[in-house]
């Protein structure tokens, strides 16, 4: 008679892999520029200039001017996230499943990688040269269509103008993130839905869109955060004429007139909270999307 003996369950021994060393620079960077920097902002937002504990800086966030700055920043971020999201999704759809040739896809993806990182003075100048008062598109509207867009109420140095400028780096980011998600849609799903009698609309309504929805919403949150944190483009294009959080923040920390570093730190804290919610939401939605697309 044979007996089956089971060896006592061994505890998995901790084994340090040298592979972790490769990640050390990343963790060091994250510690210095995310953890320590954020902690510094949090601490300084509750200290006055003498280093005493105070809630005055946080209370300062309820000031009408600050509330207005947050409102405008959120408004621009929402507009550009929605517009960039929709345009980016349509372009990504066109190049991945829309049936355009491979070279068009390569060109769009390559330029999206470049333009999604474009910003600051260069971008501001590009839009001034294009749809500024003497921009060539403005001139074409005037000469060819007899339309004077600035007399019709358009202004590049307004919320609309700034949104159009932000859109330049927003929608390519959407293209870059949505293209792999669209590639993840399996042909078997389409074939199965067709076999079951679904038409194109029904396939998108009941299969593809629900699968892509977390990716779509997550990327739009990322676009929101991207626009919310932008400063250089807005400053170069509009100076201080549009009241944005990033511009108010820099004025409070570095300005001659509005200098109040404590309030600046509490503004930064507010931004960290909003950005944290966006990035957290993006991560959760992206995880959900990946789970579905891997099945």
């Amino acid at each position: 008679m044979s007996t089956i003996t089971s060896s006592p369950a061994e505890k998995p021994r901790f084994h340090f892999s040298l592979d972790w060393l490769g990640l050390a620079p990343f963790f060091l960077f994250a510690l210095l520029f995310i953890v320590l920097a954020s902690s510094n902002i949090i601490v300084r937002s509750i200290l006055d200039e003498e280093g005493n504990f105070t809630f005055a800086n946080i209370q300062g966030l309820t000031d009408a001017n600050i509330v207005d700055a947050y409102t405008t920043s959120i408004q621009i971020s929402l507009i550009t996230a929605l517009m960039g999201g929709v345009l980016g999704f349509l372009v990504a759809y066109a190049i991945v499943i829309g049936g355009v040739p491979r070279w068009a896809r390569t060109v769009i993806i390559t330029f999206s990688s470049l333009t999604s990182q474009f910003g600051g003075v260069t971008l501001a100048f590009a839009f001034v040269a294009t749809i500024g008062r003497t921009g060539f598109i403005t001139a074409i509207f005037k000469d060819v269509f007899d339309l004077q867009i600035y007399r019709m109420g358009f202004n590049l140095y307004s919320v609309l103008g700034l949104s159009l400028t932000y859109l330049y780096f927003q929608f390519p980011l959407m293209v870059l993130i949505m293209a792999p998600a669209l590639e993840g849609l399996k042909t078997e799903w389409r074939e199965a839905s067709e076999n079951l009698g679904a038409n194109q609309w029904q396939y998108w309504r009941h299969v593809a869109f629900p699968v892509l929805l977390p990716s779509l919403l997550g990327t739009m949150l990322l676009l929101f955060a991207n626009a919310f944190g932008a400063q250089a483009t807005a400053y170069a294009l509009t100076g201080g004429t549009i009241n944005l959080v990033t511009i108010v923040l820099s004025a409070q920390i570095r300005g001659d007139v509005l200098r109040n570093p404590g309030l600046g730190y509490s503004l930064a804290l507010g931004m960290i909270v909003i950005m944290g919610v966006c990035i957290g939401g993006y991560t959760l939605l992206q995880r959900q999307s990946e789970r579905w697309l891997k099945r």
Partner: protein
Amino acid sequence: MKRFPVWSWLWVIIGAAYMFVPLYGTLDFSLRAKKGEITLLAYQRVFEDDAFFGSMKEVTEKDWNKAVEPPKHPEEVSWAERLERVTVTAGTFGETLAISNGTHTPTLTPTRC
């Protein structure tokens, strides 16, 4: 026979145009340093300017502030808007560069067009 993907091409063209048109606008603007002429004068001036190569070595915070600092006059105008006004007023890209590196300050006319 496979249908021509009209809608896909439409979105690709719109997307590509949004990316390329502002770049073309910048190129077009840079070639109009002389009124009514297409010229490389602006590039020539840039390469002749010692400050350009100086800025390639190190852009300090001071240089940056000099280039983009909003004007001190009461009506607050952005750097880009100033740039455009100078272009309208002075008519040459050279004048604009002169302002950006702080070597010469032509009279600005802060009037809204």
